[in-house]
């Protein structure tokens, strides 16, 4: 995980197409420029980055379900709750489940846990749009492979 580069997922450990779920793991880095400001002397992962982490896990789920044909873009976050602090070095498990697949959009329910304790959860909505370019599509596939996710049926 590299917070400053928005690389929030270290690996996809389980992707269940039939169950429409995904489980990912990451480890919060010990150091990051983000912690210099949030907060000086009391480093914590910002809630907005936890939401981004849930969005990325949900995004890989949506990509897998549409066979990487279209790109999910975060469009809305509902009922997001930050339940506890997430310090440097914490191992996290990010899970997402598809709640609804609509026409041109999907809704997921996602959560993050650390050592069995719920850190945050929320409902996320994504627009499903054509990839802006072939390069973008290839980059997302390569990233998914790097994380351990199969990208073809």
């Amino acid at each position, binding site marked *: 995980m590299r917070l400053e580069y928005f690389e929030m997922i270290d690996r996809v450990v389980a992707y269940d197409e039939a169950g429409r779920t995904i489980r990912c793991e990451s480890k919060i880095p010990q150091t990051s420029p983000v912690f210099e400001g949030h907060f000086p002397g009391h480093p914590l992962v910002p809630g907005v980055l936890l939401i981004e982490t849930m969005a990325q896990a949900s995004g890989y789920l949506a990509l897998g379900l549409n066979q990487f044909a279209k790109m999910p873009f975060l*469009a*809305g976050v509902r009922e997001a709750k930050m339940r506890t602090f997430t310090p440097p070095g914490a191992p996290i498990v990010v899970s997402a489940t598809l709640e*609804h*697949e*609509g*026409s*041109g*959009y999907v809704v997921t329910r996602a959560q993050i846990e650390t050592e069995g304790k719920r850190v945050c959860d929320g409902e996320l*909505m994504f*627009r499903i749009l054509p990839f802006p370019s072939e390069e973008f599509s290839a980059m997302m596939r390569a990233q998914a492979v790097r994380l351990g996710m199969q990208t073809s049926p």
Partner: protein
Amino acid sequence: MSTFDAVADIIAETCNIERDKIKPESNVIDDLNIDSLDFLDVTFAIDHKFGIKLPVERWTEEIGEGKAKVEDYFVLGNLVVAIDRLVEAKKAAG
């Protein structure tokens, strides 16, 4: 509750529009000024309430290709008819 009333309630709550301003002849874009993001929320609420999948992508394509007019799907009276058809089709499919 009629389909129109249910949809109007959803729009009023989701888009913060006075319920009295929402009429069967209202165009969701021109009259109610609902943007695409709010309409996404409306679509989700309709999908959820009626157990259907509004084919908004197909409708948008048909409008883009000149096969349909915006008002065919995005005037509330017509949207309600489309919802009722989708609900009936779902029932028929079992």
